């Protein structure tokens, strides 16, 4: 019952949040100077042509009326037509979404592996120089944002020791047999390991850049809760049974120490997804974020709206999922 009530409450606030995002983005971008429609037409277009096109895109109505039309469309899954490419926004945006999702998930996996390894090593060798070194590395990794890590990685592994690709999602000359835009997953499913390797070598650096700050957060928090858990009675009991230190950490402490880290990872994951915007630009990766920046530069209002709303939906969905997961995993909440 408790979980159902939490779910209902969170769904309500999520709806309010999304409505707020829709209102803000709609009205903010309508202040953008420059008439996007006038930019579409060739230089010799008459006032009459501009007015006709304005009417076609509904730009001749009042702002509130435009918002009403747009919102009712959005609710029915119609996000309007992109001004620059003249295709439905929903299709364009959904076409790019898999690229961004794959990048974010790969980054999350890398962050969990790196952060987990740092936390486990730090706990295993607590009180030694190894732990101090890990702490310093965590501190630096956390202080510098993904944008700068991306540039550092480009220099190190794109130029100095060129082992990874530094732009694009896949080598353009390759023949892609894919039916979906989830290249990474589909190449694996089709057992096309040659393509898979090419895609990974394109994705690895942007994903690592996104992962480094999150890995540091996971490393710090997980180590802290591991060290607390290591002092509990049941861990001492396991030790007196003669289990080795590494086994005690992995088998006994990790499971209980992971819960507080998990909730934090959820919130931080949304920050990571937000970071894809600039990282995709930096690595010329054809995802949503790169498309968003182009849309802003081209003043493509319907496309900007669609992308921002999609990001907001992803963010709130991740937060909702984490809250629910926490409620399910935490026995105190489950039985309350």
């Amino acid at each position, binding site marked *: 019952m408790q979980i159902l009530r939490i779910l209902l409450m969170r769904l309500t*606030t999520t709806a*309010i*949040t*999304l409505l*707020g*995002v829709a209102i*803000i*983005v709609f009205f*903010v*971008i309508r*202040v*953008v*100077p420059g008439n996007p429609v006038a930019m579409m037409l060739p230089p010799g277009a008459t006032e009459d042509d501009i007015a006709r096109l304005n009417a076609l895109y509904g730009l001749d109505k009042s702002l509130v009326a435009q918002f009403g039309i747009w919102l009712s469309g959005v609710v029915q899954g119609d996000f309007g037509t992109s001004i620059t490419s003249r295709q439905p926004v929903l299709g364009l945006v959904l076409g790019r979404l898999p690229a961004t999702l794959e990048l974010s998930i790969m980054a999350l996996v890398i962050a969990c592996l790196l952060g987990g390894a740092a936390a486990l090593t730090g706990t295993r060798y607590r009180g030694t120089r190894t732990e101090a070194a890990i702490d310093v590395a965590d*501190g*630096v990794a*956390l*202080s*510098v*944002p993904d*944008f*700068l890590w991306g*540039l*550092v990685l*480009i*220099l190190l592994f*794109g*130029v100095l020791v060129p082992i990874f690709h*530094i732009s694009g999602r896949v080598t353009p000359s390759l023949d892609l047999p894919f039916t979906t835009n989830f290249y990474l997953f589909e190449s694996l499913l089709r057992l096309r390991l040659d393509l898979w390797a090419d895609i990974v070598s394109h994705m690895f650096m942007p994903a690592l850049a996104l992962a480094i700050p999150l890995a540091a957060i996971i490393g710090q928090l997980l180590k802290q809760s591991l060290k607390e858990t290591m002092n509990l009675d049941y861990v001492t009991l396991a030790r007196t049974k003669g289990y080795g230190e590494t086994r005690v950490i992995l088998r006994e402490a990790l499971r209980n120490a992971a819960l507080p880290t998990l909730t934090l990872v959820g919130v931080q994951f*949304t920050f990571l*997804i*937000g*970071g894809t*915007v*600039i990282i995709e*630009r*930096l690595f010329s990766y054809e995802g949503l*974020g790169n498309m*968003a*920046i182009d849309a*802003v*530069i081209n*003043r493509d209002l319907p496309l*900007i709206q669609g*992308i*921002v709303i999609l*990001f*907001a939906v992803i*963010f*709130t969905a991740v937060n909702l999922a984490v809250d629910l997961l926490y409620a399910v995993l935490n026995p105190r909440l489950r039985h309350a």
Partner: protein
Amino acid sequence: MLDGRSMIRRRAGLRLWLSAGWLGLLLCLALAAPWIAPKDPLAQDLFLGRMPPFWQAGAEPGYLLGTDSLGRDVLSRIIHGARLALLVAVVAGAATCVIGACLGLMAGFLRGWADLVISRMIDIWMAFPPVLFSILLIAVLGPGLWSIIIAIVVIDWTRFARVIRAEAMSQGAMDYVASAHVAGRGRLGTMLREILPNVLPTIVVLLTLEMGIAVIVEAILSFVNLSISSDDPTWGGMIAEGRSSIHQAWWVLVFPLITLFLTVLSFSQLGEGLKDRFDPVLR
């Protein structure tokens, strides 16, 4: 064996001094830029394009860190770029701090409808991808120094508001607040005289961190070519140019990147160091 606490304090102290030292140096460079920069940061010389730094063969004397594709001196552009970076850090950081902290205090201490409205706004703001939001705002406001500052304030006030709200709530529940109330102090007086001094250390730490974030945001906006006019020297603009000519002239990217890296790291370490200083448990 050394006492653990004194070791932590010594390390924190070193961190504090190193980062303060770098930022102090940068401030001096920025203030004295017109006098100490070896060249005019805008002067182009197409015959001297992409000259390597001084220790490499083919370097042009007088251009210590080399030149970019238009023959502009990289060192002078970094020094002049420090002016904009620090200006944005200080002005945007301070403005974000004042607005965010005020809203956070109101939400956390006054509670009621103020809290309801502010918390809901924070939720909405958290659902925006911040980089995209800032690019969008610059598109609306038009490029320029003030646009950058306004964009940073509009986006980042929630960083302060979230933390200060929580702090003000926990402070508000303490006995000293109740006794101030009994002593006849009004709500506003209590908020400013009792709560504010107690959350001030947190505000200072957040302000330091925010300055680092502001430097990064400015660099990102310059990178996507939306900051100020593209001729003016900005670290982000230099990085964008360096990124595109990375295989021909690595130094155009490397030197501004190192400067930006150290600056952001220093602001952050300064903030963390101050946090340790203020933390009564460690002290």
